[in-house]
């Protein structure tokens, strides 16, 4: 396997890992998931209260 193939495999593999992890964290409602929006509830440290009051 050439160095070029290894570099490409690492970049693609890293992106697949990041994408899957992010998707999981989005739907699990964990910080760092969801979008990059600063208003994103998943990023707020104090967002739990509303969950108890649907």
């Amino acid at each position, binding site marked *: 396997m050439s160095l*070029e*193939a290894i*570099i*490409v495999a690492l*970049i*693609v593999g890293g*992106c*697949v890992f*990041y*994408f899957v992890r*992010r*998707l999981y964290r*989005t*739907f699990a*409602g964990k910080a760092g*998931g*969801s*979008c*990059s*929006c*600063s*208003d*994103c*509830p*998943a990023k*707020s*440290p*104090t*967002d*739990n*209260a*509303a*969950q*108890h*009051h*649907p």
Partner: protein
Amino acid sequence: MPITIAVIGNPNVGKTTLFNALTGLSQVTGNYPGVTVERKIGTIRLNGSTAHLVDLPGTYSLAARSPDEMIVVDVLLSQQTGEDPVDAVLAVVDATNLERNLYLVSQLKELGKPLVVALNMCDLADKRNIAIDTAVLSAELGAPVVRICAHKRVGIDELKTTLTRVIHEPIPPASKGPEFPGTLNSEVDALAQLLNDDAAGVGRHVPRLEVFRLLVDRGGYVEERITRGGNGISHHLEDSRQRASQNGSLAAVEARERYAWIRRVVAAGVVKPKTRATTSSDKIDAVLTHPIVGTLIFGAIMTVIFQAIFSWAGPLMDLIDKTFVAAGELAATALPEGMLQSLVQDGIIAGVGNVIIFLPQILVLMLFIAILEDCGYMARAAFLMDKLLSRCGLSGQSFIPMLSSFACAIPGVMATRTIGNRRDRITTILVAPLMSCSARLPVYTLMITAFIPETMLFGGWLNLQGIVLFAMYSVGIVVAIPVAWILKRTLLKGETPPFLLELPTYKLPLWGTIARRVYRHGKEFVVRAGTIIFAVIVIVWALAYFPHSGAITQQFDEERGSVGQAAISDDARAAALTDIDNKESAAHLRNSYFGRMGLAVEPVVRPLGWDWRIGMAAIASFPAREVIIATLGTIFALGSDVDEESESLKSYMQGATGNDGTKLFNIPVALSIMVFFALCCQCGATLAVIRRETQSIRWPVFAFSYMTILAYIAALLTYQAGMWAGWGANV
């Protein structure tokens, strides 16, 4: 352990502005009610020690009728698991409207915690000749009163000093609050004893104030929570209400006693002009909230915004475009030909670069939205929309979340917490993602600049491209109205609620606040391009590059050999070799994993006028909408079947052809793509937030399903109507 101070007040009295002034943070503020729907925490230094400051959503009373109001009650009563109890309360009141603001203060007094009252908007009160004697007011309220002007940072140091003093040397209340009938008080005490009894209770300590709310607020959130699970409390509660309501309805008794107390306090400490002068806000409102004139002005403002998006952002977009083209050329020369060069040039630069180009347009849109919000106009827009929304079963209350969704659906969905009625709240949540968020803007502008002629209309005043962009933004709200109408008559049947909206005073926008909001949105866009869009586009590139069949390469190498040996002119040979290169790229793309999936999908998207490349780009953009641009950039860079000199995505798209040699894109195709993106819920984060806010998987699944079907049908109708109208050949 640091002490905790809760910042509380009516909606739109400047709590978050004060919170930012005290903590140095930059939480989102806006000149309309309902900006804060969850509590936010910051830290301040008080006389050398650290204190936590909790910014709570605005509320008129502690009688919780909506989720955001319940947050306030929970935090104040220390009912929030895992959160530090509140040690002191900082009540922010509007100095120009003390009668209404002191209602909440009268309830806060009953918490029995150190209380400081920050008298905000004193500059406006002075302008209106409202004289407030803070010393008298302080004595009447039994709590220190500090004059402040939060947005000018006036009085902040004095407020900090007062907070320090009150926390370290709590002052016993010097005056009594409202006095309620003895029967009511005795029933509250009896019920509190019952609820806190080990045998019959609810398994936790229920503070007296919560018991008071339970008794008085029939059908409120406190009742719902305490009687949940059929613990037998309901029966006792009804008996207590019967006995306590001898003097009339309990809610009416509470209001009567509190306002009587407020009148006494205000009479002692406030001198107001006998007649209320007509303010400049009143004069402006007479025009801006007029049903006809106001609506026309609203339309004119929106038209100006969408015209500006094209005209202002153009030069900067050209600059970014040229930078990425240069970066692509640099990558082509710096890296040896092969898969790594293709990844960098065709994947990352062609993909992410084509998304970043739209940053200036995002900034222009956000600049306008921030100015309109900060000056107080958005509340008037909600007022204008109330009549329209009420016809479909929603109130103007739903317009604020829908308005927030024009920036991003996530805060929009969260802003529905201000809606007390659960059915209205869910209806609003389901239609909010139909509003065109900033992620859709790049999709619209790419299609518009590539395929909508830059024709000037109305004597050169309006650009057709701007009008089409305005129309695309209108699609969401036009479709949301019948969708809400259907939902409110089927799945979520219910009465149309009355809408009470306090119109905030107009003020000059604070440029620092606006700059922070614009910067924040710009940063978010760039971060998205550098993270999720980057990751998706690298995956798309890999799927579109591999398996990169050796047999295809060999076949075209043989063709190149034949051309090399043919007796033709140099120019003809160069043209033939370019043609072979393009055909090879296209063959590799069609043979790639992405191409194979696309060909399977093509029959589904064909009726929309799309080929497999557009279909796959739309599917790839389900995690984030902007990915369609990155995907199209990569697809056309990898399978370049057009003139090599066409270096921008717009040029690639304008020259792209289908299998039959006809142009791939035309006006109906561009419109159908835009309509599909306007109505489809291609945002995983929004679906996750809908699930969280509704506490159910059913609603995000429903939102995704109905929006996808709606988008497909609307795109189909748009394309077919466009072709029928004869726009298909008009590129």
